[in-house]
């Protein structure tokens, strides 16, 4: 990077000289007397939350960035009692206060041992705990990265993950160091201060303070260049030290991955960290204003002055917004929506109402009261509203259909299931639709919750998936088809339970059966459409309609299974009970196609999440088969044929 700060090339020579005079010190972390200082902090971070940051290809508010970062490090979106954004503020403005925070999640105790650290019960470690083992970690990570990814063991992958987290932590921690006073820029001698026109009643200066005085600095540097260095005065030696510190800082703290400040050039879409902006062009008026605002924010945070903090945060956001391109502006306008989405945990509310609705149903099996029915309807609607809202917000924030990752598919399928349940209820008015809606909604949202804990659910899409008509219609159609088959599966269970009940009502089970087949037909139609649209998309993108890929095969299996049920009915091989069993198995098929096939390439042995899915899926299949076996046999005794 061209250092425009030092407009005189001779500074380089000077720095060389100064590095001879002042042997390079090891600026290792943790040797700073600032360790003991604590900021006063600021009560409200409302203005801070809204600041836009460009991360992983998407412009998002700092609040979302904070949540994703903390999730990445520790698997949680809060630290002790602090929210993610509160922790981020503390991390950026006063990094050393976070060195003892146990935020690094290390799943395998083997790794802790290899780094000579006491394994912790909660598997989370602080930076200070990891720091002595850092060199070992680096060595291990470099050795592992030369192994082919397929041959890396689970522990190897975990080491790479921890190493990249620690690297990220280190690089981010330097983002705002320019703003706060640092011993490297402490100037004791009044003479030096006078030379640089600095405030005379202070000794503690920051990088920013010194940078502002680049004029007097370069003048002194000029004289120093010609003067024989043995003849330097103390003040001049001091300045030499400052210059070499400036040089070191410009190398050490550059390349920080915090994208807060958009560049001026229209082709470059990147956003730079404060330090990188300084190194790139401090004298640009817009940049200068923004850096100053950021710096004042940091100072206000340390001083505890809420007003100054808010004013500067707003000033910064305004200045940045003025410089954005039209597309970027459109995206930043969505930030309030995203903050709203973060604030109310819509899906948790929806889950709650669905659960309540289901309990009311159970209650109503013993107490027959009309009011309970109305209450259940209310619960379902109350659950549906936040559920739908969450999806609508996601669509407007991300400007794409809400089915681009597994998390979103679960939420979407849940919504369609509830919708189908509501239609059923409107048609039949006999509790059937309500039960279906509440069960499906609750279960699918619970599964979605597990996926959201894995990481950022609002990521950008890779090249192939960007704004493609066929792809979006294909995924939408298939998820609707999955929803149909899920509902049919649940209704299969209901039908069997109705038959097993002591006072089985033939009329009710008849209705259940007919609706089950109807919904199965709907599911078959939409899944078939989705599968063929997927083929069309594949043909448009790569030239082959069908490739017998695991995902394609999964969808085909659902279509085949549903047609087998229908044709077996026509061929009179099975009776209504058999069709119900078939629907339950269709549900199993949907689970297989949805995320079972994704496990094939990973294999069943990996930490945490994926192995969890595999075992849960396996357990689920076993339970379903047992349920089917037991109920078929029991009903067989009641003379109900398969």
């Amino acid at each position, binding site marked *: 990077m061209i250092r425009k700060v030092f407009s005189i090339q001779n500074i380089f020579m000077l720095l060389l000289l100064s590095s001879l005079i002042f042997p390079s010190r090891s600026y290792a972390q943790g040797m700073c007397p600032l360790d003991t200082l604590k900021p006063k902090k600021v009560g409200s971070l409302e203005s801070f939350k809204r600041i836009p940051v460009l991360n992983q290809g998407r412009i998002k508010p700092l609040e979302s960035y904070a949540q994703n970062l903390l999730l990445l490090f520790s698997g949680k979106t809060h630290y002790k009692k602090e929210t993610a954004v509160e922790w981020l503020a503390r991390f950026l403005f006063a990094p050393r206060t976070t060195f003892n925070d146990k935020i690094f999640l290390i799943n395998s105790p083997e790794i802790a041992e290899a780094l000579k650290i006491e394994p912790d019960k909660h598997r989370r470690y602080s930076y200070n705990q990891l720091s002595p083992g850092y060199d070992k970690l680096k*060595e*291990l*990570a*470099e*050795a592992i*990265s*030369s192994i082919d*990814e397929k041959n890396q063991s689970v522990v190897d992958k975990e080491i*790479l*993950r921890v*190493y*990249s987290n620690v*690297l990220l932590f280190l690089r981010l921690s330097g983002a705002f160091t320019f703003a706060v006073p640092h011993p490297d820029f402490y100037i004791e001698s009044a003479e030096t201060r006078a030379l640089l026109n600095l405030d005379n009643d202070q000794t503690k200066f920051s990088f920013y303070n010194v940078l502002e005085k680049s004029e007097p600095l370069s003048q002194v540097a000029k004289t120093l260049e010609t003067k024989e260095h043995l003849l330097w005065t103390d003040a001049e030696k001091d300045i030499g030290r400052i210059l070499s510190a400036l040089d070191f800082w410009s190398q050490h703290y550059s390349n920080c991955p915090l994208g807060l400040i958009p560049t001026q050039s229209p082709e470059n879409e990147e956003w730079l960290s404060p330090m990188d902006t300084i190194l790139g062009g401090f004298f640009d008026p817009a940049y200068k204003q923004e850096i100053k605002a950021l710096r004042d924010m940091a100072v206000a945070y340390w001083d505890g002055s809420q007003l100054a903090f808010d004013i500067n945060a707003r000033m910064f956001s305004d200045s940045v917004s003025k410089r954005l391109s039209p597309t970027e502006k459109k995206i930043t306008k969505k930030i309030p929506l995203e903050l709203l989405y973060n604030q109310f945990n819509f899906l948790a509310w929806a889950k709650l109402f669905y659960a309540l609705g289901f309990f009311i149903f159970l209650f109503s099996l013993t107490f027959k009261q009309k009011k309970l029915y109305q209450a259940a309807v209310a619960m379902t609607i109350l659950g549906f509203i936040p559920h739908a809202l969450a999806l609508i917000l996601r669509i407007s924030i991300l400007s794409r259909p809400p*089915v*681009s*990752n*597994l*998390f979103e*598919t679960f939420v979407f399928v849940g919504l369609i299931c509830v919708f189908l349940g509501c239609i059923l209820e409107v048609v039949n008015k006999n509790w059937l639709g309500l039960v279906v809606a509440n069960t499906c909604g609750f279960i699918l949202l619970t599964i979605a919750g597990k996926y959201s804990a894995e*990481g950022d659910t609002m990521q950008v*899409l*890779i090249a*192939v*998936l960007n704004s493609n008509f066929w792809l979006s219609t294909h*995924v939408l159609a298939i998820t609707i088809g999955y929803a149909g088959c899920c509902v049919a599966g649940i209704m299969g269970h209901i039908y069997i339970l109705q038959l097993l009940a002591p006072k089985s009502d033939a009329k009710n089970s008849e209705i259940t059966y007919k609706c089950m087949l109807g919904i199965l037909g709907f599911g078959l139609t939409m899944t078939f459409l989705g599968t063929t649209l997927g083929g069309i998309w*594949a043909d448009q993108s*790569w030239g*082959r309609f069908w*490739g017998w*890929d*695991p*995902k394609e095969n999964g969808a085909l299996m659902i279509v085949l299974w549903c047609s087998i049920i229908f044709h077996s009915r026509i061929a009179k091989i099975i009776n209504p009970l058999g069709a119900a069993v078939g629907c339950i198995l269709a549900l199993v098929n949907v689970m297989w196609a949805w995320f079972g096939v*994704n*496990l094939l*390439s*990973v294999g069943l042995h990996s930490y945490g999440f*994926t192995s969890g899915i595999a075992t849960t899926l396996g357990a689920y299949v076993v339970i379903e088969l047992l349920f089917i*076996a*037991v109920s*078929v*046999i*029991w009903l067989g*005794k009641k003379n109900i044929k398969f």
Partner: protein
Amino acid sequence: MDFGKKWIARAVTQEIKDRSFKIMTYYLKYYYRLFICLGMLNFLLGSGNATELRQYEEVFIDVPQKHKMADSDPHAFMGKMPQDDIHSNLNLGDKDLQAQLNQSVAPGALNWVTPNNWLEKKETSGMRLASFMNKDTAYPIETTIVSLAGKAGGVSANVTRWMQQIKLAVPSMEELENFVNQQEKLKTQTGADVILIDLTKWQKETEAQAPSMIAAIIEKEDSQIFVKMTGSRESVIKNKDSLRSLVLSIQEAGSQK
């Protein structure tokens, strides 16, 4: 009804037997007729015939070569399914480490002298610079030369990994460091430092056929060259001198001597 575990188990197995019997009878009834159709179709669609000659005009317009460098392999034929969350498993690796790894295959061609009793193999993959095998097939060995930029892990880390590859018990850090210190240290023709790691020392004389390895690490200014020889213990010991002569002859293309 008593739903004891035994009852369930018996009933379930009985059901399964009934079901599978029914399915099998359906299958067999039609099967033999299908098989006849199958035979006919196979006959109709025929088997291969004499090799046909094709003729075509081939046109290729080239660009002036800037340097005579071999192209790196194209990215493997990209997986047909998009590598997204829904369509297959997404392994999120660290992008920086990936970039570092991409840069870490060191440039700079090497020359060497193949030992008399070894044959050099033509390499088609990217990472390996060369590989060799023994002319004498009674003591088969395979040797590879790989070059990596930067310090690809310390000596101990690499030795540990190699020991794991040939299924040797990895000793304590102290023992390992002692072992490394005792290994032969040489200098190549061009003055680069070499350490010759002989892992046969960890195996007994009687384990002649156990897989073993002797490897050399050549330290250059900004890269490391790994020369690894694997084979059974006795083959590897027999070829140690050839390995040594190969290692000492390695030099950068264009360098004098």
